Every structure is written in structure tokens, then in C-alpha cells.
């Protein structure tokens, strides 16, 4: 099971290499006086990714287990909490959508609160209050104090 997921990551690496290669074809050749143009390095990186991803895939395929037992392996094999993952993803989507229309304080407090929920916090009201307090402090300190432009 785990090796299949890892194989997926290897394929992502290879796919990144291939798409880099295809993308490099679309890069303009640039002025002629340059011996090697802006395409050369993308080709090198693309080749590297494909080769390394290939080696990685082969090593997983052969051993059907990670090449090296990473010390923190128990951390990495525990199943993913998809609920937490969903909360975090939602918190970011909402933030991106809301940041400019409703402003930093509201959008960021909501995100803060969603993050605490992702970690399974039970004290919902306290989290909400802390979220608003921190967001307000940050907003005042950074936009009034340091002159950053926060929406």
C-alpha cells in the first residue's frame, strides 16, 4: 500500500521532468549571439528529474519498501487524517477568496479558527476569541506600526 503511494510520488517527479521538457520547447530561442540559450538549463533539469524519478521508482519497485528506513518512519506511515487536511485546504481557499473583499482581520481570523479546528481543538469559543485578538493585533502592528499595506 505504502509503496504504491510512494510510486505515485516518483511518477509525479517524472511527470514534472517531462512537462519541463515540453515547456522548454516553447521557450523562445533568444538572441543568436548566446552559445547556449535559455533552453539549455531547462533541458538539464528536466533530464535530471526524469532520471532521478526513474531511479527512485525502480528502487521502490525492486524493494517494495523505502530504500532507507527513515528514522522518523513511524511518523510517516501513520495514516493521514483527511478531515484535518480538508479543514486546512478549506481555510486556504476561503482566505484567498476573502482576503481582498472582506479585509485581513476577518479573513485571517476565520482561517486561524479553521486551523485550530483542523488540529481538533475543542475549545471553539476561546479559539475564536484568540483568533480575532491576534488578527487585530497583527493588523494594527503591521499596517499602522510598520506601514505594510494589508487589505
Amino acid at each position, binding site marked *: 500500500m505504502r509503496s504504491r503511494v*510512494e510510486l505515485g*510520488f516518483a511518477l*509525479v*517527479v517524472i511527470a514534472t521532468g517531462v512537462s*519541463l521538457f515540453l*515547456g*522548454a520547447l516553447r*521557450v*523562445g530561442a*533568444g538572441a543568436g549571439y*548566446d*552559445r547556449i*540559450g*535559455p533552453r*539549455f*538549463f*531547462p533541458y538539464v*533539469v528536466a533530464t*535530471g*528529474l526524469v532520471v*532521478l524519478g526513474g*531511479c*527512485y521508482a525502480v*528502487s521502490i519497485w525492486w524493494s517494495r519498501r*523505502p*530504500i*532507507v528506513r*527513515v528514522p522518523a518512519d513511524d511518523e*510517516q506511515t*501513520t495514516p*493521514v*487524517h*483527511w478531515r*484535518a*487536511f480538508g*479543514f486546512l*485546504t478549506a*481555510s*486556504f481557499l476561503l*482566505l*484567498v477568496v476573502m*482576503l481582498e473583499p472582506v479585509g*485581513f482581520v476577518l479573513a*485571517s481570523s476565520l*482561517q*486561524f479558527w479553521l*486551523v*485550530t*479546528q*483542523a*488540529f481538533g481543538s475543542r475549545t471553539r469559543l476561546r*479559539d475564536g476569541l*484568540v483568533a480575532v485578538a*491576534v*488578527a487585530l493585533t*497583527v493588523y494594527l502592528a*503591521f499596517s499602522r506600526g*510598520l*506601514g*505594510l499595506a494589508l487589505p
Partner: protein
Amino acid sequence: MRQLLDGFAIALDVGNLLWALAGVVLGTIVGILPGIGPALTVALLLPVTFRVEPVSAFIMFAGIYYGAMYGGSTTSILMNTPGESGSMITALDGYAMARSGRASAALATAALGSFVAGTIGTVGLTFLAPMLVTLALSFGPAEYFALIVLAFTTISAVLGASPLRGFISLFLGLTLGLIGIDLQTGQARYTYGVPQLLDGIDVVVIVVGLFAIGETLFAATTARTHGVVTSVKGWTWMTREDWSRSWKSWLRGTVIGFPIGALPVGGAEIPTFLSYWLEKRLSPRPNEFGHGAIEGVAGPEAANNAAAAGVLIPLLTFGLPTSATAAILLAAFQQHNLQPGPLLFETNPELVWGLIASLYLGNVMLLVLNLPLAPVWAKLLDIPQPLLYGGIVMFATVGTYSVNNSVFDVGLVYVIGLMGFLMRRFGFPIAPVIIGAILGPMAEQQFRRALAIAQGDGWVFVSRPVSALLLGIACLVLAWPLMLRTARLGRRSTGP
């Protein structure tokens, strides 16, 4: 020497002293808190300090850098959870000491060892840097390219679980570095018509994504038991025996840490491992190790801090970062339109020497802050985990948004965070990604410049002795594990 005194004059300015103090306090805090480290902190503060005088900003960054090394050891000792990777080894004997009621002795030897090593390392930096500047001035594009290739290979081969993983990380970083307008020809690469990508992905976005968001995703989706702080009972100062067992370890740790930090091999982890191994070999009581041997705390902690000073040498003299934090510092220089390297010593002596002088002062401040206050700092760990990560994510938003005032970057940070999450999950090291993303464009530029000077002759990298030597070492680093393996196999097959 004169220049150093001038530097002290700058660093002792009241304003700069306050920046240094802010830096070391912040550094200690982020060193203690899990999920947030010096690289991330400097990245988040980059946009904020854009309007601050460069000297003051760098004095603060240096304080954060050194402070995190001190803070990291506190959690290792009290909780068995290293705040920084450089303090992993400290946890072995430090936590054992804490559990047997000698927490304050462990904290003291760690703080004093860090101070001794940090100060000696800074002295080394003071005297070695000007010498290396002369060497760096003789470097042309070909040599620079070779040096960067060497840094790439050593960093990827050494960090992480296996060289293969390290190199995949590196190439993913190189990929991120390719995005944007090609510096030499003005051609857009991999921007897919998105105007925000033309300037490339900002380093802040990459670092915040990989560290802050990747770490938050990892921590939230992987249930982990939270450690318990060992309370410090009473104040048992280091005994006479502790002193006599510690001071030699401090010095040995320094001797190991400083050169390894200064070489482009990167990371504060290796010298700590080496130091621990050495202390165990030299100790008359090797069986005490793992059960609270004070040398096992003193040596690695000193090595850790000496390496931190060493890392600044290639950064300041060659403009070559060898750790994630150093890579961010390089980006910080670039944001202030400064290019670290030999010329910086000529054009901005007050910045360089003010920075070096502030390292001495920062070390003193850290000793004062950490020796009596370590248990107070450890109280920070009482912050509930959900609130801590909520705060990290909020600061991540502020930091990335204020780079370009763009919501696009905030979205991008999540995408890169996902990548960081997957890499953590599959055991890929993060630092090579950042080094690759920052040094990749530099490598390409130097490579093409060297070829242009040599009129397209690709042999230029081999015909120039220094670059040939550097590339040769890089090949050796690559071939070394293979050679070891074949040698071992050979021995086994010829054996009985």
C-alpha cells in the same frame, strides 16, 4: 582589526543594540517553538524589514540565527523534542540528565558551550573571512559555477535519508528556480501566461510554503503525542566535576563544528553527530552515554554553534549559502540590493563588520538570556498546539501577502506547502529545495557567462585548475558511497 572596531562602533549604537536584542529574543523563541525555525522567521520578517536600514535588519537576522541555536537545545533537554535539527543529538543525553534531576546542569553546559563555541567561531570568522575574500576575488565565472556544483552535490548527498532523495529535492528546487524571466535573454520560462510568475517565485513564498504550510499540514494530519516538559527542580548549578568534564568537550566540539560549517557541505547536523561519536570514544565512561553523560550535551551543542558561525564564511565571502537559513540570508541581501561576496567587503564594510561585531554581542546577550531564564522560555511550550499553528499560518499569510501585495502569492504558498507536505511524508529533505531554488539561477548565469568568455569552449571548466579541482571533488562526493559499497562487496566475496 580596525575594521572590526569600526564594526563594534556600529553594533553598539543604541538602535542597533535593540535590533540585536529583538533578534536574539525572537531567535530563542522560534528555536523553542516546534514547527517554526530561523529560516522561516527570517523569511517572514524579510518584507517587514524592507524599510529598515540594512545594517539593522541584518543585525537582527544574525541574532535570530544564533538565538535559534540556543533555544533549540532547551526543548531537547527539557522535552526530548528538538526545536532544531542541530539539537537532535543533544536530546539523547540532555533529556536523560533532565529526568535524573540535573536539567539545570544540562541547560548550563549547553548554554556555556554554545557561548564558548559561538565566540570562538566568530573569532575564526573575523580572521578567516578577509583571507578568503582574497581567494574569492580570484574566482571567475567558471570557478563560481564549479563551486556551486560542489555545494549542490555535497548538500544533496549529505542531507536527508539517502543521496537519491537529496538530489530529487535539489532538482525540484532547481525547477522552481527556472520559473520566470531568463536573466540573460529576457525570455519568459514556465510562466504559462501568468503575469505574477514573470518575476519568478519569490524565495519568501517558497520558504514559507515549504516550512510553515508544509509543516502545519504535516503536523495536523499526523497525530503526534505532545511531549511533557520536565520541570526543573531547584537550581543545582554545574558541579566542579561537570565543569572539568565539559570544557574539553566544548573545545573539541568547536574544532569539529567550525570547519565543517565553513566548508560547503552544509547543515549543523553532521558536526553534532561527529562530536557525539568522538566524545563517546574518548570518554573513560562510554557506558554513561545515553543515560545522561554531560559530555554528550556539551560537545554537540558546541559543535552546533561553531558550525553556525562557520556557515557565515562561505555566505559572506563567496555569496554561497550552505544551509536553508543561509539561503534566506542571501535572499535578504539581494532584497536590499546587496550581493554577498568579496566585493561586499569593499563596498559595504560597515555592514559586514557591523554584522560580525553584532555576533559577538549577540552571543553575550544569549548567554545572559538563556543561562538563568531557560525554564522561563520553556513555558512557551504551554501554548496549545492548535493556537500555535493558527498563529504560524496567520503570520505566513501576512509575510507572503506583503512581499508583492498579491493574493496570488498566498494561493501559491499553499500549493508549495502541499509539495512540502508530500516531501515530509516521504522523507525528502527540504533544505536542498531552497538551496536549489536560490543557487540554480546563479549557477545558470555563471555557466553561461563562463561559456561566453571562453567563446563557447566547454572545456573551460576543466582546463582552469581551480574549477577542475572543485568539480573533481564533487565527482568524488558522488562516487564515494558507490566506492564504499563496491569495496565492501569485494571484501565479502574474497573473504572466507
